[in-house]
């Protein structure tokens, strides 16, 4: 599914990612943890195609394709989804229209006709129900005036609507209350299949109790310094990042 080889990324001449290696196969869930400012969101953004970063080395292969050959929107149409750490407000664009446009653009890319209106509405209603989302949210402008938790839920709503094959969730758990966390996690679990891959960026072991990862990676100062199973997350929570620092 995804293969990252020795990825090096700079922003404004400052090196953020210093050689990342990561292999993720279909059906797997990977968790990435690590202290603030170590480059987790940078990695996620580079996979999604954000242009402000300079890739100075390495490559990313996704479904056999060189990701750097694909535009941001083409990556999305190829099944990559980024759940933003800080979802963006778009005043004047309603969530319904946004979602319909996105779905139809992705269908167009695949050579499909636009989704029939009824089918779209049904899908939207089902997804809202799945995530216990307030119905009025979809008629409002995208993320505008949404609470922190509502914004995060909205990311998962979009994920469920678009059904990507590679979903990267950047701190989707932060800002969610305990109930919302459970709802979101069970939503994600329902979307898990043997054909898709999740990369979950989080600071908290708690999320991983709900979305159980196959692998946990620790990103530290631009490098993945430790990888392991689920137990690594528990160990990290007990010992803190100082423990990592001493062992690298």
């Amino acid at each position: 599914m995804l293969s990252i080889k020795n990825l090096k990324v700079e922003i404004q001449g400052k090196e953020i990612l210093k050689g990342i290696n990561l292999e993720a196969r279909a059906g797997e869930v990977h968790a990435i943890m690590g202290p603030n400012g170590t480059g987790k969101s940078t990695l996620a953004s580079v996979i999604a195609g954000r242009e402000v970063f300079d890739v100075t080395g390495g490559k990313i292969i996704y479904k056999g394709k060189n990701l750097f050959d694909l535009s941001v929107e083409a990556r999305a149409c190829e099944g990559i989804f980024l759940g933003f750490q800080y979802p963006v407000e778009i005043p004047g664009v309603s969530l319904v229209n946004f979602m319909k446009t996105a779905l139809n653009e992705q269908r167009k890319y695949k050579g499909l006709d636009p989704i029939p209106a009824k089918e779209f509405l049904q899908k939207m209603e089902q997804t809202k129900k799945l995530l216990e989302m307030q119905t009025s949210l979809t008629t409002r402008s995208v993320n505008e005036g949404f609470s922190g938790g509502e914004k995060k839920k909205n990311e998962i709503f979009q994920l469920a609507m678009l059904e990507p094959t590679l979903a990267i969730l950047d701190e989707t758990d932060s800002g969610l209350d305990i109930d919302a966390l459970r709802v979101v996690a069970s939503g994600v679990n329902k979307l898990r299949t043997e054909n898709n891959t999740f990369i979950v960026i989080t600071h908290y072991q708690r999320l991983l109790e709900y979305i159980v990862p196959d692998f946990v990676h620790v990103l530290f100062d631009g490098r993945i310094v430790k990888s392991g199973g689920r137990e690594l997350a528990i160990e990290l929570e007990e010992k803190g990042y100082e423990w990592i620092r001493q062992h690298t």
Partner: protein
Amino acid sequence: MTPILTENTFKEKMLKLFDDNLRSNFSSDNEYIRNIRKQAIGDFVKFGLPDTKTEGWQGTNLSKPLMLEYKQHFKPFEKDVDVEKIFMCEVHDLESYLFTQLNGWLVFKDESLSTLPGGIVVGSLASAFKAMPRVIENHYARYSKVSNNGFVALNTAFAQDGLFIYVPDGVVVDKPIQIINIINLTENLFIQPRNLVIMGKNSKLQLLHCDHSLLHKQSLINSVTEIILTENSELEYYNLQNKDSDSTLITHAWVEQHSFSRFLSNTLTLNAGIIRNNMNVNLNGQGCETNLYGLYLVDKEQHIDNNIMVDHQKPNNNSNQLFKGILDDQARAVFNGHILVRKDAQKTNAYQKNRNILLTDKATVDSNPQLEIYADDVRCSHGSTVGQLDPGAMFYMRSRGISEDVARMALMNAFASEIIHKINIAPLRNRIDEMVTKRLRGELSICDQCILDCNERRKYSFDIDLSRINC
């Protein structure tokens, strides 16, 4: 040619025309009108036309259009011009009382002044001068001020026709009144339309004013609209401007508001040659509401200048200005928004915002919000922004699979929609929404048809026999 020389030439031309007309076309005016004309021509001589050194006019240079030769007509067309042959203006599902001003003269079939249900009088101002001298004396040229430019004086000196509306006390006009101002001539034309809207106490009206040009000839319009809102009356005033690149449009609206009156204006500029809109609102009563909105979409060499003055003369009034623009290519926008809160105008709420999106680095905006406050218990704010489309929002949309073009369109539409949603006439709002989308896609041209109906089927040919027009 230097601007000064041009101005003098223009001035001399106007003075000579005025003298000629006093003896001919103006000779049938009643005394009140004649006196107003004479005083106005004096003011015109005194103040002259503004140039780029005049306060409030620095951003708009009119020396080029003023240098051109124009035809002026001081007599109306034949009365039986069939407007429907000229064009059909159809906002789908919009029912309106429709009036047309063609090359400066109001076109009518049977009667130059019609009486609508409730005793509303609408029609040609030229006829109202004669038929309703008392009303005219009470209101005409009472609200417009010469201020710092001679255009208003010039219009007042020469004005002969335009739309006259009188809504009696307590009457709510059941359908919008629509006036379409068309320029369509095979020669350069200079016209000075004059409109007067009188709103009786507790009356209500929605007025739609469309300005557009049909043939690509140079045109200069210098229009003045006076609006009086007496106690507790309400007017919505929509201005749709879709002008070709060879046109210069200078508009002046003078709005006088009495207590508890409500005025909403929405000026939508979809294409321009040079446009300068002046809007002056005098809040001469208490408990008034004033909402002034504007949207301009300009590209190429187009120029749009909105000059707003809200004069809070009395306490307890609310005013709000929101003007938004999208500029492409080398287009230029000027916004001068002036809020004046006089000493007695306590408990004033006055807000103003101008927001612009520049799509290129050659497009320019000159935005000057101005607050002048002499009262102490007031709430005022102003702000202006000039920026690009939000790159964060662009990335967010693209990351969902939306292509760059579609995302850009969606963001521009969203930006414009805030103003479009202030249109309270649903069919008009929907049509404008479509037109703005078309415009942003580059598909809206200055149609050779009414801009409100770009329906191919209705493509018309010109049936006006120019030999029948008295010049």
